[in-house]
């Protein structure tokens, strides 16, 4: 489904991603793990077209994304829940969902809002509240729900557990597991290594802009190096 080849991204003279290659097959949940500053979020921003590529190629279903504008990527079936949630805080929950489904027809939007609210009942309760006043967990659910409005084939989740209470983190990972069961292809970037490896099919480990390890998530979870570097201190 997604194929990334030799991706380089720089901010000025600083190289943030230095030749990353990976792929995600249809129906898979692939996670990219790594410490803060490893280049994970920059990689996702490059996938969404939010930062220019220094070099490399990104293909979705065999087609290059090089000439596809940020706005048109949603039309290719890409959904994105960014790091830090970034809900539209001055818009109500309902308006956030409408913004997420802005490319849909009116009737499709209404139907999808009902479907998404069924999956996230708390959003129905809070639908007229400004997104800015929701709790962190509710905002994360809204960010995921907003990305799901277009019923994406390929969902990109950037640090969905960041800054959330442990109980809420478990809820968020349950939702991710449910989405996987529903057949959504997911690329998950996380610092919560244990939980993301538990839910993923395959994983890539990024350090300083490079992929240093990859393999089935279960194998990486048992890898002593991964356990030393990430699982010892992270829950």
């Amino acid at each position: 489904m997604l194929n990334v080849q030799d991706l380089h991204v720089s901010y000025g003279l600083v190289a943030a991603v230095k030749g990353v290659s990976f792929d995600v097959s249809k129906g898979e949940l692939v996670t990219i793990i790594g410490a803060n500053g490893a280049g994970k979020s920059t990689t996702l921003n490059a996938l969404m077209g939010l930062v220019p590529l220094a070099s490399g190629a990104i293909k979705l279903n065999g087609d290059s994304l090089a000439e596809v504008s940020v706005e048109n990527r949603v039309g290719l079936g890409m959904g994105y829940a960014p790091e830090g949630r970034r809900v539209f805080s001055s818009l109500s929950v309902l308006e956030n969902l409408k913004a997420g489904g802005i490319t849909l027809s009116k009737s499709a939007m209404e139907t999808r809002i009902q479907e998404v609210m069924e999956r996230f009942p708390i959003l129905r309760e809070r639908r007229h509240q400004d997104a800015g006043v929701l709790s962190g967990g509710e905002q994360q659910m809204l960010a995921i729900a907003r990305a799901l409005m277009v019923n994406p084939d390929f969902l990109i989740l950037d640090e969905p557990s960041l800054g959330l209470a442990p109980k809420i983190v478990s809820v968020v990972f349950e939702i991710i597991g449910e989405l996987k069961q529903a057949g959504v292809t997911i690329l998950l970037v996380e610092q919560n290594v244990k939980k993301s490896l538990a839910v993923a099919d395959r994983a890539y480990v990024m350090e300083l802009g490079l992929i240093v390890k990859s393999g089935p998530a279960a194998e990486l979870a048992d890898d002593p190096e991964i356990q030393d570097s990430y699982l010892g201190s992270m829950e």
Partner: protein
Amino acid sequence: MEEFIQYLVSVLSLGSIYALLALGLVVVFGQLGFLNFAHGDLMTLFGYALLFMTLWGVPFWLAAIFSIGFAGLCAVAMERIAFRPLRGQSPMTLLITSFAISGALHVIFQVAISPRSKPIPIPEILSGYITIGDVFIGRAQIFTIIVAVGSLALLNYFLTKSRLGISLRASAADFDVARVMGIRANQVIALAFFLSGILAGIAALLWISQRGAVFPALGLTPMIKALIAAIIGGLSNPKGALYGGFFLGALEATLLSILPDDYVVFRDAAVLLILVCFLIFRPNGIIATNPEPMR
């Protein structure tokens, strides 16, 4: 009681013009993170369009509607010609560009039209007063309140109910994420400028209907007032522009009614002093969410 009603009318008529103008500034600020100093010149462009159309015999009200549309199109042209080539530059670059546009337009008005004030015939219905009991209220003031409140209600409906309005607000809240959702950057930025032009045109109609003339620097004073209102209210949210506009209207009307005649000249100084207080103690304005300038 009579004095209070007159005071209230002054607050509403002044405040609503300031709110319309401040809203025009805020919708553009929300998209591009800069204050368009040429916003006041859109009012002047409206004024000259109205002047020439009435001179050519177009009925006043028809000319007013066309001129409002003209101001909207001028704002879109301004974005297309001057600001779009600078997309991605810092807000400071865009701000300086807006100063340049404003300066260039002033010179064009002075050279191509006239440096002097040109009278615009205002319809009879807008002149004179009506009396309610012992209270005299200017017709132009009533017209201002009705048009401004109607425009604000329409704008609110547009921003909250329409797809384009939600796109505009989402994009103002987080431009990049809005683009990821499929909201088109060029479309919403052009829409923001068009709306700001329309709002400047409506404000200019109300401003001119109380003064009956157009001159090259017509937009300067209201632009400065709008700037003060927008900063006081908060640049991050259209509600802030509303609050700031009416706050400034109330402040000016109050100062006018409480200051002794000899001290009325200090009214603007007092307003600026309060602005300075806001900048020191509440720099994000009455609606204090953090603006996210970008691009």
